[in-house]
Structure formats: C-alpha cells, structure tokens
C-alpha cells in the first residue's frame, strides 16, 4: 500500500444472539431446519400479529454490552426500519435507532505486543430477516423461494468507531470481538453459518489529514480472510483513484469472493429512505440498575483478564496469551492441561503447534478432539520423566489424536519406551564408533560438528528410542576418553 495514505476503517458487526427462541415470538432459533418449519403467523408478518419482546434477548444484550465496556441505557426503545424485500415479511425490521441498549464502549486489540483501544459507538438489538433461495443466479433465476426460519432471530449490531487503521487491525478487532462474544456465551460466532457477520466502512486520507475521506461500505464479508482482503483491495482502489485524480463516491459495495474484488451495489443517491420511527407495538424498555449489576456479576472471565493471567501467572508471552484466549474452549483446554503439568510455555507450544495443526488439517473443533487435556499433560510428563523423547512424543501424539488412547497405552503397545540404560547405550555407541571410525577421527582432530552426526547414528540405530541427553553425554565422554 502507498505509505502516503492512511486507511480508516469502522466495522458493523451483526452477532446472532444465542437464545432458545426468537426475539419477538416463541419460535425456535435452531439453525439448519427444513425451510419454513420454524415460523408462526408473526414471523410471516400476518395481519393482526404483534411482537412481544423476549426478555432473554435483553439480558444477553446487556451482558455483551458490559463485556464491551458499554454504558447500558436506562431506557431503550425499538424503532421500525421500513423497506420492501421478499425476505422481510412485515416490510419493516424492528431495530433500535435513537435509544440503543448499549453505547460508548471499547475493546482492546493486541498487535505485535502493542495494545490499542478501538471504540464501540453502540450496540443495538434487532430482528433478523429471512432468506431467499434462488435457482441458480439471482439475475437469471425464473423464481425465488422464501425461507422465513431466520426471521426474528435476535441480533446485536455492534458498531465500532472509525478507529481501525489497517486490515490487520480489523482482523484483530473481529477476533477479539468474537472471543468476547464466545466467552460470554452471547453468540456462537460462526462466520461460516452467518451467526457473526461483518460490514466494513472504509475510507483513505493523506497521512496527517484530519478530515475523513469519502467512505464505501463493503458487505458480504464472511470470513476473517475476506475482511482483510476486502480492506486491502478497497483501500488500494481508493488510493489509485485519488492518485489518478478521480472522485470517490459514497456507495455500498459487495466483496466478490471468487474475483477477490469489491463490486458496486448502489450509490448513496440510490439508498433507501428507511423512514425510521418508534414502533408503537413495543413500549420503551426500562432497564433497572439492579438487573444490570446482577448480570454483571454473572460475567465470566473475559479474554483480557485471561490473557493477563496467562502472562502474569504463567509467564507466557503476550502473543501466546492472545492465541490461547481466542475461544473459551481453547483456554479451558489449556487450563485443564496446566492443572496437570507444570510448564505453561511447553503446553502453549504444543497447543499452538501440533494440536492446532492437527485440528485444522482435520477440521475438528477442540471440544471434539480425542486427546483430552489430561492425556496431553500425561504425555508431557512422560517426556520429562525420560520415558519418551520429544521426537517419540510426536508419534505418540499422532496416535493419541487418531485413536484417543492414553499415551501410556500407546507406548506399551508400540514398545516405544526410551532407552536410558547407560550400559545398553554404551554398547550401541561402541558399534557406531567402530562403524564410523573416520568421523571419530575428524572429531578428535577438532571437527566438533561431527558429534551431531554420531548422535544421529545412535538415534537411528535405536529407531529414535535412545535418550538423546544420555547419548550426548556418553558419546562426549567416549570421544574424549580414548
């Protein structure tokens, strides 16, 4: 990117709230059911139907607001956002405009050890729309089908300040926001299922300039990667246009995953006039302070607190702490393991390394992982006790990952016990030295690197089961001794 320019980004995130039932009726919110099986006349916008607010939604929204350091409104109100679309049965969405439930919050992101605070302007409750299913492409389909299952699913729209300055910061914000929503149990945070969705407002300005540039709003960002790529693409598009003396227009664009570029949807002039006004069917919601404090008391340990604990109590580097706190399940795994093993950094290395690699490759959630945290701790203890070497441990780990067997069982079954007995090892060392007399000579004449080769030969001869520390010690003695 052209360093003369600064990119300015604000994110609007829609998080589906994890409730049993919808925001204004008692229909189920379960994902993936047969179309139009989780609807009532209210979901379908039938005449005479009225919304009744689900109190659990308010409670969860307050919880999210508190976790995001927001002020919780004493009175909030619902408004109608009016527009016609076949997936919006009432032809208005019940949302919040002037009096949202949460305002003036922030979250902290950590980039290369630098902390940065990103402001959260507001978070408000609203209902989701249904979805349209087209046969083939929307422009050529002969008809569209309407599935209203998602209608009325509770959403929290979380709007950030334009405090984000790069694609990497945007990703860090999204990751942090997601982890907070996961830790608090507010949302399932599944971007691929659409339970966490993101729009980005992007503009650029010459470095040092105070005024914001003209922004475009990018929709359809369904993954962290799409978010990063879209911001990079859009920022460059703006910069190139400005450099070429063109004018940026305020517009809504969509991210085309296939073409890896943004495409114009509509300009500001074509934008709908939503004719917001207070929904007369829903009285204002009064939120008494006692309730807020009650909810605050139920807040679990949040990612920031957990990170601090990992750094201060376990001595982990901030980077490790950030990764380990991406999801509550990952952190719980670490904590469980840590309860049975003394060295946090070694656990962290295994979790960020082998464990993550295997989970990703096999597309498995950590909760479904066959290696229980206690089993991983046991394996690490076996290394420390000298029963297996680090190298052997990787083979044991794979077996554990595939079968879920305890490490002791695997070691026994495969006969993978480490050879630490000095007399057994000495015998093998003798054989290796005899077979590699030339190398021994080299070592003795000063080529110290030759030691590594000889250790390797001993390990090879024992199929990796020799205790490398003892082999090193014995070899060094033998080479010196003669």
């Amino acid at each position, binding site marked *: 990117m052209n360093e003369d320019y600064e990119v300015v980004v604000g994110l609007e995130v829609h998080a589906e709230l994890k409730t049993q039932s919808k925001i204004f009726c008692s229909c189920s919110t379960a994902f993936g059911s047969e179309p139009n099986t989780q609807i009532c006349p209210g979901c379908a*916008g039938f005449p005479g139907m009225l919304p009744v607010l689900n109190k659990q939604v308010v409670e969860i929204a307050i919880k999210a607001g508190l976790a995001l350091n927001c002020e919780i409104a004493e009175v909030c109100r619902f408004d109608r956002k009016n527009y016609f679309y076949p997936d919006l049965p009432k032809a208005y969405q019940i949302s919040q405009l002037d009096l949202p439930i949460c305002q003036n919050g922030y979250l902290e992101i950590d980039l290369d050890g630098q902390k940065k605070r990103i402001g959260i302007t507001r978070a408000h409750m609203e209902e989701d729309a249904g979805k349209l299913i087209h046969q083939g492409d929307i422009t050529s389909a002969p008809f569209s089908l309407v599935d209203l299952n998602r209608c009325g699913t509770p959403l929290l729209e979380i709007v950030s300040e334009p405090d984000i300055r790069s694609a990497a910061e945007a990703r860090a914000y999204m990751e942090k926001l997601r982890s907070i929503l996961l830790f608090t149990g507010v949302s399932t945070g599944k971007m691929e299922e659409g339970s966490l969705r993101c729009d980005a407002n992007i503009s650029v300005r010459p470095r040092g300039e105070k005024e914001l540039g003209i922004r475009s709003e990018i929709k359809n960002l369904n993954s962290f990667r799409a978010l990063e790529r879209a911001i990079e693409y859009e920022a460059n598009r703006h910069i190139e246009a400005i450099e070429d003396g063109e004018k940026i227009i305020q517009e809504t664009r969509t991210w085309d995953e296939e073409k890896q570029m943004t495409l114009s949807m509509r300009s500001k002039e074509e934008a709908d006039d939503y004719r917001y006004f207070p929904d*007369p069917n829903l009285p204002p919601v009064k939120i008494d302070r006692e309730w807020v404090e009650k909810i605050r008391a139920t807040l679990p340990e949040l990612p920031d607190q957990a990170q601090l604990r990992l750094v201060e109590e376990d001595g982990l580097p901030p980077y490790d702490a950030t990764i380990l706190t991406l999801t509550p399940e990952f952190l719980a795994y670490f904590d469980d393991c840590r309860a049975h093993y003394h060295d946090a950094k070694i656990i962290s290395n295994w979790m960020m390394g082998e464990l993550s690699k295997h989970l990703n490759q096999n597309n498995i959630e950590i909760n479904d992982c066959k290696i229980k945290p206690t089993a991983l701790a046991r394996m690490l203890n076996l290394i420390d006790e000298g029963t297996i070497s680090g190298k052997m441990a990787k083979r044991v780990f794979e077996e554990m990952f595939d079968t879920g067997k305890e490490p002791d069982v695997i070691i026994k079954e495969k006969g993978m016990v480490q050879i630490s007995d000095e007399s057994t090892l000495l015998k093998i060392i003798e054989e290796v030295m005899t077979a590699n007399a030339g190398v021994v000579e080299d070592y003795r004449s000063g080529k110290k690197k030759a030691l590594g080769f000889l250790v390797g030969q001993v390990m090879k001869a024992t199929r990796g089961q020799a205790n490398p520390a003892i082999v090193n010690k014995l070899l060094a003695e033998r080479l010196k001794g003669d």
Partner: protein
Amino acid sequence: MELHELGLRDLQNKLNQKEVSVQEIVKSIFKRIHEVDDKVKSFITLDEENALKKAAHLQDSRKGQIAGLPFALKDVFCTRGLRTTCASRMLEDFVPIYDATAVSRLNSEQGILVGKLNMDEFAMGSSTELSVFFPTRNPWDLERVPGGSSGGCAAAVAAGEVPIALGSDTGGSIRQPAAFCGVVGFKPSYGRVSRWGVVACTSSMDQAGVIARKVEDCALIMNIIAGHDPLDATSVNIEVPDYTSFLNPDIRGLKIAYPGEYFQQAGVDKQVKDLVFKALKKYEELGAIIEEVSLPHTRYALPAYCIISPAEASTNLACYDGVRFGLRDYEADNVLDMYCNSRSAGFGDEVKRRIMLGTYVLSSGNYEKYYLKAMQVRRLIKNDFDKIFKEYDLIITPTTPTTAFKLGAEIDNPLTLYGNDIFTVPVNLAGLPAISIPCGFSDGLPVGMQIIGPTFAEGRVLNAAYAFEQNTEYHKNKPALGGEPI
C-alpha cells in the same frame, strides 16, 4: 317484543327462565338478517351453518358468560377459518388460521358468532362507503350513511340484526357510527382490550370495543374481552373490575365538565348542540355537577391525528406485498412490479392516500417537521385532559358535529369527512375510555353524546351512561328502515 329486538342481557334472562332456547334465538337472528340485510347491507360474511351447529350443541350445555348468545364482528377481527377481509380487495380471500384474542375470549364464553360486518377499507373512513364490497346504509334513513369505519356494526345492531358487535376505534370508528345509528358505542382505554389478531390500522390508537343497544350489554362484553394479554405488549396488566357492578343509576355528586371549544367549533349543528346541553341538564337533575372547562389544544387534535395515523398505517400496511398472502399479481415478471401491481390493485383510494401521506411525513427531512411535531401536540392534548381530570370525573361532548349525512355527499371531500371525527379523535390521541349514547333526535336522525373518562375509568363512564339511559327513552326508539337506498 320480538327476540331480535332484545339485548344480550334480556336474552340471557329468557334463556335462564327457559322461556326460549338457544336455537330459537339464533334462528330469529338469521331470520331478521335475511329479512333486512338486503336493505341495510351490514354483513360481508355470514357464518350461519356454524352458528346453528353451535346453537344446537349449546342447547343443554350452557356454561360461559354469554353462552348461546349471538354476536358479530367488524371484519377487522381475525377469525380462524372464516375469511377476514377488512373490506379490502387485498384480503378478499384471506382466511386466518387464528382467532383474535377478543374473539377467542367470546368463543370460550360460548358466544355464537353470526358473521363479519362491513367497514371502511382497513378501518380508514367515517361512512362505510369505502368498503370494496358495498356501502352499508343507515337504518334510520337508508339514503344516509351509518358512519364508519365500524358502520356495519352500528347498522346491524340498530337494525336488530344482532344484539352486539365488536368494533374497533382508532379515531372515532365505534362512537361516530353508534351516534349516527342511535346505538351505544363503547371504546375502552388504550391497552384495556388486546389488539392481538385485530388487523392494525394505527397501532398506537386502535382499540377494540363494543357496539350494543344497551349500556348493560357493553358491561357484560367488557367483562369478557378486557384484561391483559401476554401476546400484546401494549395491553396493560392491571386488575379488571366487574363492569356490571357500575350499572347503577346513581350519579349524585359526579363532577362533569363540558369543554367550551367543542360546542363553539364551526360546523357544529345547532340541534346537536342543544340536545347535548339538554342532556347535561338531565345530568344536573340527576344530581351531577356540571361546569364548563377549556381544552385549549383541541383544534390541533385533528391535524396531529392526520399525521400520526397515516404514518403508522403506511408501515402497518406494508406487509401487504403479495408475497405470502392476500392479492398478488402473478403476471409481473419482477419483484418490484409484483409489489406495485398487487398494491395498486389491492388498495382503494383512501388507503392509498393515507399510505402516501404517512410515507411522506416519515421521510427523511419531514420526520421532524411533521411526525415529531404531531407527537408533541399529542402530548399537549393528553396534558389538557389530565388537567381536567384532576378536578372532574367525566367530560361530556357531542359525539359528532352533525347527524348522519347522505351517501355520496362527502365521498369526494376527504377533509370534510375527516372533520366528522373532530370530537372523537382527541380521545384516541390521549388513549382515554369513551362511550357514545343516544341523546335525542334531530329531524328524525339520532344524535349521540360522548362521555369521556380518565384512563382505565371505564366503570365510571358506564355508570354515567347507564344513569342517563335509565332516565331517558331515546334508546327505546327503533328505526323504521325507511327511505330509498341510492
């Protein structure tokens, strides 16, 4: 007296005395309907077969509060399995899969639904001429309108086609037709009766209520339909008194105010004014204290109403897009055309006028100028009433400035038509309970008097209405169903 001329309570007494059977009552009602409805045109849909079945079934198992007694509904109340049209082309074939809460309460008290009554399309109008099906006629003079929008209810009750009907009142839609047709029209406080299942016109003002020939029947029905409904977030969760306990003729010491503004208004018929003053005298004779007061913001009520009501209606009626129910243009080849064609064909002129008005006043740049301003006026009007009710128990006004006008007389002049609601609209803006009862005749046409009470003081309103009714004979007059319909 013929069975069809009796009120709900009278019929109930006859049933209890075993002087008459449920089937006889229901049959007499349908006989009357078949005799006179060709002239009056009150009903859009009759449910005769089901009603007779129910009557046969209830013959020996009456338990509910109105067991075996007939009622009818304005066609704005959703009825399970029975089409609910709102007198609109849009919903001509719409059959709900649910009963409105008020309807299921009447059903569970074993009332017998007779049919669905005509109205102005989507409850927008004051004459029932704006029904897509046909205009309803005033039983006192078939050349005249019955008022609206619950004109079918008032005409049917006046013509003896049914003893009571549920109507809805957004700006006078129960009281104005009741006044025009010489019957009782009771609009409870906003929030008293559930709106669930009542097709919305103006959500912040719509309220279901009763049209009957006698005040006591209003109390009887209110005992059933009033009360909190968890399905309506605006229905209040407070105790519901036994409304029949207010049916006593004693009103000594009651402080009644009459607002000067309502009587000085241009366009108020002199005879109407005189009859209401005469009624106030009657109250004085009965021991009430009568004083003139001022409701200074009265003249802003109608303009405010004409902004708030269309604003809400414009978005309440946005769900009629042809996608899931109601009229749809199947020929359109894209979704925008489908919307436009369906809505153009499905709605009448007045509905379209209000949708356009409402859309305009909510548009960006206009919201503050119109909608917000109107909401501020609404607050001032409510304050006016609150102030009076600190010192007075009730307020009495004419229900309408004039008696019923001729069919077609004002149909091309929406502003004059809106003017009909000038005395009823402020009550809806403030959410108060009010009743219209007959207080005399002007040139053979009924005149109505409006009694307004403080919020949730329905009982007091019924008490005053009952006292007047018991001490006058106006309600005993019966229309002759004369005059030639146009």
